């Protein structure tokens, strides 16, 4: 009888300590952020729990990296890009090479503006065969209409033409 009582007491104490030990194994939630996609909702629609960051320095840098220019109603945004282009191999004169390289650089600058303003569509595809990567493909594409872009500066050095281009965007251009 004595031993059975002692056994019961031991078991109950071990289960209590076990419960205390099991609790800390759950992920430690240090910070909870409420995300409201529309920006005007009152109730939180989605709650994102962030795990404790092991490197506090990196955690401090996150808000700065997340900062990006937002087109406000009463302000303009100036976007500046530098497009690059090269001349074809079979040009008849340096002047022709310059003209063709400049045309290519201008198109590249237009593409960069379109990518910055409208965004890029990215598709990726990997083919794995017999546990080996057979083919890896990444496709990116952008389609946009760009108008009123200004060429700021053009440089041509060692066959490479660089066109610095900028565009000023206002809120009214995007008004519905």
């Amino acid at each position, binding site marked *: 009888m004595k031993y059975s009582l002692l056994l019961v007491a031991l078991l109950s104490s071990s289960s209590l300590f076990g419960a205390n030990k099991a609790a800390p194994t759950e992920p430690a939630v240090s910070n909870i952020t409420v995300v409201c996609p529309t920006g005007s909702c009152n109730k939180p629609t989605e709650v994102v729990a962030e795990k404790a960051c092991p490197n506090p320095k990196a955690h401090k840098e996150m808000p700065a990296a997340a900062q990006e220019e937002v087109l406000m109603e009463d302000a303009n945004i100036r976007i500046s890009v530098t497009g*690059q282009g090269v001349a074809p191999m079979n040009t008849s004169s340096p002047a022709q090479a310059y003209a*063709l390289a400049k045309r290519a650089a201008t198109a*590249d600058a237009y593409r960069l503006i379109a*990518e910055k303003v409208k965004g890029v569509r990215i598709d990726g595809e990997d083919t794995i065969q017999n546990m080996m990567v057979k083919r890896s*493909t990444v496709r*990116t594409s952008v389609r946009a209409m760009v108008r*009123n872009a200004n060429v700021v500066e053009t440089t041509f050095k060692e066959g490479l033409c660089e066109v610095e281009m900028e565009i000023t965007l206002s809120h009214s251009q995007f008004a519905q």
Partner: protein
Amino acid sequence: MRSRDGNHSFTLAICSVTLFSSLALQASEYLISYRYLIKDATLFNETFYISKAMQKCQGTPSKPIYLDNPKHQNLKDLLSAYDSEFIEYIHKLGLHVEHKDITTNFKNSSTTVLTLKTTCFKVDFNENFAIIAPLK
């Protein structure tokens, strides 16, 4: 009773009509399209089409460009003489950008197409210059 300068308004009207018709020697509409293709950062193909409009275009002229035309050239010759100015002007009007980039097994290839869709331009040939404006 008829005054001594009774035909003054009629003469003035005739003179003004003659003056304005001589200033605007010829006004017509042209369809212009432009497209160029860049492949791997090199200009691959460039096309520029000009055609006289066979039907009257709708719209009002906007954002005109003025080109000197002392030799009274036709539009094709005029634009070939001022090709860089006109292409810069077309860029300002707005071009459609289409870019595709493909990376297969770490080898990259890209294609960019810039296009001015077929647009009707009103062209006024005056005595020493021409006014070219798209109809919108």
